[in-house]
């Protein structure tokens, strides 16, 4: 039982549009796996099938050895989905959001669980504020904290930083890095190359419904010709011109 996620020949069409055209990949336990692709590549579709929200048209997919379509109940016990938008209840406080999930998952000592997670995600001070008043980064952190209730073995993070400001993005990166090594398996999708580079142990590139490359960052780098030195005449950017004119050269923030 080494593999947390196993996907073979996965297919899915919406009406006439074939979104997944036979996708294969495997994720080992405890690994952070990034599914990298541009908008419309089929990342969310793949995540929705793996998290039992969508039925596939063909191929197989299993989580911790359970088939996603035939044993969806078992799969749901083992996973947590953090969707493309922070799925927090904005009327409830941060603490109530975590308690809600703890009750739904029948976790023992829900109050303790909530306190621990709020502390771990730096939300203790904001615990009793409504989640609607949180910043984008805080909402995302709460969202991820909610996903950790009941210690699922596999976590799906669908574009966890899309729509966040740079600050929020760094907060989420820090959170995901802290999760690594705790034994949890993470499948994250992203359209940002640096995000995959920063966070993932392994990266698969999904393009037009197919995996076109799969491996560690080192392995992917080898696919490219060796680095070559080039000399390029450097033109000033508008920022540099702007700063030079207003007389604040070099002190850009």
């Amino acid at each position, binding site marked *: 039982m080494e593999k947390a996620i196993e996907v073979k020949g996965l297919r899915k069409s919406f009406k006439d549009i074939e979104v997944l055209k036979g996708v294969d990949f495997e994720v080992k336990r405890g690994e952070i796996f990034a599914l990298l692709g541009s908008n419309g590549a089929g990342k969310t579709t793949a995540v*929705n099938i793996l*998290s*039992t*929200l*969508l*039925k596939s048209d063909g191929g197989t997919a299993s989580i911790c050895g359970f088939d996603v379509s035939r044993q969806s*109940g078992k799969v*749901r*016990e083992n*996973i*947590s*989905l953090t*969707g*493309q*938008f*922070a*799925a*927090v*209840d*904005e*009327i*409830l406080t941060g603490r*109530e959001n975590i308690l*809600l*999930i703890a*009750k*739904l*998952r*029948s976790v023992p000592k829900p109050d303790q669980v909530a306190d621990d997670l709020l502390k771990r995600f730096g939300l203790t001070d904001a615990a009793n504020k409504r989640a609607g008043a949180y910043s984008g980064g805080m909402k995302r952190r709460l969202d991820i904290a*909610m996903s950790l209730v009941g210690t699922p073995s596999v976590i799906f993070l669908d574009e966890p930083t899309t729509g966040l400001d740079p600050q929020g993005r760094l907060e989420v990166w820090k959170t995901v890095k802290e999760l690594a090594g705790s034994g949890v398996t993470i499948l994250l999708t992203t359209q940002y190359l640096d995000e995959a580079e920063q966070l993932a142990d392994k990266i698969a590139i999904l393009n037009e419904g197919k995996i076109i490359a799969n491996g560690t960052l080192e392995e992917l780098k080898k696919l490219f010709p060796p680095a070559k030195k080039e000399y390029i005449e450097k033109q000033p950017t508008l920022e540099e011109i702007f700063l030079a004119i207003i007389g604040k050269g070099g002190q850009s923030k």
Partner: protein
Amino acid sequence: MKNNTGVLTGRLMKHILRSPDTIITVALTPIAMMLMFVYVFGGAVRMSMGTDVNYINYQLPGILLMAIASGIAYTAYRLFLDMQKGLFSRFNSMPIGRSSVLWSHVLTSLVSNMLSVVIIFFVALIMGFRSSAGILNWLAASGILVLYTLALTWIAVIPGLTAKSMEGASAFSYPLIFLPFLSSAFVPTETMPTVVRVFAENQPVTSMVESIRSLLNSEPVGNDIWVALAWCIGIMAVAYIFAMRAYKRKAA
């Protein structure tokens, strides 16, 4: 997989308690209508109906049905928000009973609408509503209101699940709010032109208004109550089938 309808209903009830404007807004427009009907049109209407008629009693059932029709717009809105914000997907990817999310919305709709109805009842009482009805009549009248709420709630589930925008999610309720005007809710149908009259006398709201009115005035109800029940259950059954179909499509 366990059924968590209770936990999820608790969540939605918090929404309502934290934004009580939902219930107040739902009750406010019908109350304003009631004030207008009783104190502006009421005198003139009573001239033609006979001065022994208590017009507050007469128009109250129609006002209550209007309140329910505007209340279920919020049911659609809350469901739409859950879809939009990804909470629906979050719950559906968890090991909980699959229909508990939907049922929590239905129960919340029922509770919040009944709260609005009670508020309107109290206002009517202050304005001079009086009933000689016994407990059984009150139960029967409440039963019709509950069934009407459930029937409209299942209609509301459909746009709640399928709408593309907030406006789309609640626009369906306008014709339902308007329906009591084209019935015997505020004036007798006798003076209406034939086409309007035929519609008014045969549409679902009329049978409900007539039976609630008769029940609360301790008058014989006749067939109206069976017609009202048939409408409620019929609408509920059809709406339920379509709502479930939409739900299965959205929740795999």
